[in-house]
């Protein structure tokens, strides 16, 4: 239980359900964690866990990934608190609502600013520290929505794909400094254990015109199912996601870089 002994991790968007469960796994594996999010109410989800481990192991910071100064401040806070940063996980994302034929520019720009530029700003902020120590792991939390044929909002599909693409460019650019950059694209997550907090500036999602295959009301052939191929397992549990993030953040995956690791129950098997 020491795969992340005396490592320090920063979770941008750490208040999300994924961040909350990944926090538990990272603490159990011996890491110090800094959660960064835009509102105190996100951190309620991990109150007892944070109290149990105390300020020596986990800290929180209010900062928005849409603002470079906030990100710089967050990283400085992490280094001041725990002395270094070994792992950065960009969990912040924004779905946006609407499809290619009717999405409004404001929703599109928000998704761009949070999902793609948010990860960009997080990486730029952590770079000086990781370059100095000549090592580090950066994980961009993208999604199956950006990788395969999913009926999600066009802003979500485009900018999660954009973030995955950006991961590859960062991987090639940062390898000389010994920094590995990977993307992690899970399918649908089981977040029932947390009460949902709507994303800031979000508008309720509406189904695509003519419905979507596999859903009631779809006007196309009823043959599409596109679900998990594993019995009784339509979606991922957060513990499984946390297990993957531990592998991607630990030195076990130090040779892996630029790749996008999928976890989607076989819905999309990249060939």
């Amino acid at each position, binding site marked *: 239980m020491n795969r992340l002994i005396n490592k320090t991790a920063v979770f941008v968007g750490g208040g999300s359900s994924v961040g909350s469960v990944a926090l538990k796994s990272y603490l159990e594996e011996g890491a110090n964690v800094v959660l960064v999010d835009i509102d105190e109410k996100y951190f309620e989800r991990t109150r007892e866990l944070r109290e149990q481990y105390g300020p020596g192991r986990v800290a929180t910071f209010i900062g928005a990934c849409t603002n470079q100064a906030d990100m710089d401040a967050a990283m400085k806070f992490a280094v001041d608190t725990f002395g270094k940063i070994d792992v950065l996980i960009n969990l912040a994302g924004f779905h946006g609502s609407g*499809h290619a034929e*009717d999405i409004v520019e404001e929703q599109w720009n928000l998704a761009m600013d949070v999902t793609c530029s948010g990860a*960009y700003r997080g990486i730029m902020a952590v770079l000086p520290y990781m370059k100095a120590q000549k090592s580090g792991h950066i994980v961009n939390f993208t999604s199956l929505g950006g990788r395969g044929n999913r009926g999600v909002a*066009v802003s979500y599909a*485009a900018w999660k794909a954009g*973030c995955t693409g950006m991961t*590859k460019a*960062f991987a090639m650019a940062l390898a000389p400094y010994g920094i590995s950059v990977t993307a992690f694209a899970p399918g649908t997550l089981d977040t029932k254990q947390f009460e949902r907090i709507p994303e800031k500036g979000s508008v309720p999602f509406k189904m695509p*015109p*003519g419905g979507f295959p596999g859903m009631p009301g779809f006007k196309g052939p009823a043959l599409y199912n596109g679900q998990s191929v594993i019995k009784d397992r339509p979606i991922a549990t957060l513990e499984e996601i946390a297990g993957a993030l531990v592998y991607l953040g630990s030195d076990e995956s130090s040779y892996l870089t630029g790749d996008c690791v999928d976890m989607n129950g076989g819905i999309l098997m990249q060939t």
Partner: protein
Amino acid sequence: MRFEDRTVCVAASGSDAGIACALNYLAEGAKVVLYYDEPERVASLENDRLKLVRIQDFKDAAELISTGEEIAREYEKIDVCVAAITRPDSDKGIDMSEEEYQEMLKTISSGTLFFIQPLLKNMMDHDYGRVAIVMSLAGRINLPGVSPAYAAANASLGGIVRNIGSTAGVHFVTANAVAVGPLSDGSYQAGTGDVQGIIKGHEVGTPEDVAKACEYLTSELASWTTGEILDLNGGRFMI
């Protein structure tokens, strides 16, 4: 004449690929509307079935949407929509300023989406449509020397194609992409590495290659190909 009674809208910026597509569709008998923002690229074009539309700024969604709605009213039925909007990749890489970063994403990604949006609405209204997007290989595979902004912008085009394919398919609209390596006119660079093709006598892609690939993806018989990315790079990267 394979595009006899078809109306094609092409957006060309930063490359001759869009111009070659427009010329190819004209040769195949189509009525073509060509959006451009670089007058010198379209100076020599002259055809009664061609309508040139000057765009001040591909980052301006409002301008693209209003222009698109106007074109849709004028031609009533849009059949094919090809976006070939690119910007040269800066050699600053990760030292790119926030403004340059926003300029790259807003031009390539937002420009492409809001060029397509009003035309896609028209296509979905009359249950026929073909969308083709020309993107750089740098958005698809890891290449040395590519700036993250350029990779993100081009990769988001792949996301747009797959999303339109998944959601507009129910209205018989297909969306595909052509991922190109560097072209002979210097556009669509893909990093600093050796990304030339391996076919003897045809190592560098030309805008005409892109035009032929777009013609294939947007013809009437390509009605069951959707969400696909055609790797047009002369055998440098096979996936």
